[in-house]
């Protein structure tokens, strides 16, 4: 087992003027036994970052440490890592058993009997004990996934690297495997890096998230931190489903003039937004409330565009009645609340749940309030 340190790591593809910066000056400390999820949209550099830890890509600048060793010059085989690939990358001409023992044969001096013993116990752990003589082509997607995981754990490596391992599975299997990988990582307590573009996977699996966009580190933090204390507009929008709603506009005399409604900023908000000409108000769909009658502050009237019933809740897409653009925002409403399309409804944006972002830099300038209990939960995880 080992900790991992990335020190000002940059990766450029191509040369000179045409170079594309895939990873831009990322520094990161990952503790021993930690489960860290690299999350971001495609092209964010998350896979490249992991491949540099694996040694499958060489960084253009910076150092990668595994344990106390600088591994810059070491190939993948010398790094004592195991990796699970998105397409599983099982060796098609080998049986499951040969697939799982290949790494042990290549990288250890173990005897045949010892290898067999380890393969059998890893296979039983993954519930694939009776598939050992099959070729990968004869297995279902879920079984292949288990073999790929088994091949990784049998090596008992310093570090697990998982590159979108669940994205080829159907939704139901994905949920099952998510829990299983979580359990496995807890049992084995091996430092794990996990790449995904799926924010649900990231939230549910990681001890910590590393949120990336365009090769740049956006935020490193626990899932709840990234959710409740986003460092910037990108993280706020990326983490959470459906996404946070954003309303952009200039601030005049302490009031945000958004398209279709005004929002009076509190004194604290005003002082933190003093230096910004334009701010973005962010609020999560579950924090907005809908009312039949207008009787509270910060209310405006909105027209229901689409209702997506999910059962216990409904996602209601609305647009402010006086809005000029055609952008909608989404509200999570009680599934039993009767709301029809075209209906006019009053919207309340509770001031304590509001985030504010600088419209130009995207940086967070005001975080939502959390009650003291929630504050403890969010910070305890850190």
């Amino acid at each position, binding site marked *: 087992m080992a900790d991992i340190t990335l020190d000002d790591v940059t990766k450029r593809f191509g040369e000179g003027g045409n170079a594309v910066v895939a990873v831009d000056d990322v520094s990161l400390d990952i503790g021993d036994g930690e489960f860290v999820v690299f999350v971001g949209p495609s092209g964010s550099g998350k896979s490249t970052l992991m491949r540099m830890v*694996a*040694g*499958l890509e060489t960084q253009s600048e910076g150092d990668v440490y595994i344990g106390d060793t600088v591994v810059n010059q070491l*190939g*993948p*085989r010398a790094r004592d*890592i*195991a*990796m699970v*690939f*998105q*397409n*599983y*990358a*099982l*060796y*098609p*001409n*080998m049986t499951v058993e040969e697939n799982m023992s*290949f*790494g042990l044969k*290549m*990288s*250890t001096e173990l005897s045949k009997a010892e290898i067999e013993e380890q393969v059998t116990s890893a296979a039983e752990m993954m519930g694939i004990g009776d598939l050992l003589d099959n070729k*990968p*082509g004869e297995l279902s997607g879920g079984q*292949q996934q288990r073999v790929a995981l088994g*091949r990784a754990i049998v*090596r008992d490596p310093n570090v697990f*690297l998982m590159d979108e391992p669940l994205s080829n599975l159907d939704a139901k299997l994905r949920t099952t495997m998510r829990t299983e990988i979580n359990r496995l990582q807890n049992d084995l307590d091996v430092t794990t890096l996990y790449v995904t573009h799926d924010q649900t996977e990231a939230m549910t699996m990681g001890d910590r998230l590393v949120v990336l966009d365009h090769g740049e580190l956006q935020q490193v933090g626990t899932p709840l931190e990234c959710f409740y204390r986003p460092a910037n507009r990108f993280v706020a929008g990326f983490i959470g489903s459906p996404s946070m709603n954003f309303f952009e506009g200039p601030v005049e005399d302490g009031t945000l003039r958004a398209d279709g409604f005004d929002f009076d900023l509190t004194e604290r908000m005003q002082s933190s937004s003093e230096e910004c000409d334009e701010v973005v108000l962010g609020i999560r769909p579950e924090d907005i409330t809908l009312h039949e009658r207008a009787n509270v502050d910060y209310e405006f009237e909105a027209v229901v565009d689409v209702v997506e019933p999910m059962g216990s809740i409904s996602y209601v897409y609305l647009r402010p009645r006086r809005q000029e653009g055609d952008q909608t925002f989404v509200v999570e409403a009680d599934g039993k609340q009767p709301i029809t399309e075209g209906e006019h409804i009053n919207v309340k944006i509770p001031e304590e749940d509001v985030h504010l972002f600088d419209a130009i830099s995207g940086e967070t300038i005001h975080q939502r309030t959390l009650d003291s209990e929630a504050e403890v939960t969010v910070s305890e995880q850190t």
Partner: protein
Amino acid sequence: MATSDVEPGSSQRLDKDTQETLVTVARHAVLLGWSVVVLFPLYWLASMSLKPPGQANSLPPDWVFLPTVYNYIQLAQNGEFVAAFANSVVMVGASVVLVLLIGVPAAYVLSRYDIPMERDVLVWILSSRMLPPIAVVIPFFVIFQQLNLFDTRIGMVLMYVSINLSLVVWVMKAFFDGIPETLEEAARVDGATQFQGFMKVVLPAAKPGIFSVAIISFIFAWIELLFGLVLTSFNAVPVTLFVYSFIGSRSIEWSMLAAASTAMIVPVVVFLIAVNKYLAAGLSFGVVIKE
């Protein structure tokens, strides 16, 4: 044909079983007919080779005759034929090994690495086959004479390699393109060197493709006549040239021609049977691995 009990009223329509039987019978009839079309020339050749000289080409053909292995004994006792046959086996066999040794790694490199002007390199390799052989045979002759390769087995091997190299490179490149690169990466993470990854993981996965290009290269070289005719005189004569010698300016020795041709088919059939199980996958070039 099995007709099951047909209830009154539904007698106009065939029930499902009968329909299926009819389709099966029709399918087999078509296949049988096509087999006759395909196999008749082979039968004709073989039967001709088993007739005594003089009877081979008689018209109308003798459908019933007493088969004889006279022609084959003649062939086996003919030192020139045995030498030419051995020549071809050695030269073609060596050329297939050599073309794979050169072509497969070349294709792998073209598939996996960023080669400057890759497209141009590929077209350049293909361009070696763009001129009709008859247009290049004289330059070949001159070069072979200069390099002392004329009428040598090594010269013929090189010539066969030049014929097949573009095929091997192009087909194998497509094949390697279809093998996900993550396989090698997985092998490297598992502790293999890049070379071990190629040998232990990629090559076995590419087996169907390799056997396919091997058999096609073998056949192309085995049946080559034109270059053999111009580039050899005595020492390195291939079997095709020997067979050709039965076609004289005044007469054609039909029965001997048929026997030698039949003998020529044997190595190809042996090779085909040996690698048969890999061919089905290999002939659907490059689309084998689906994980």
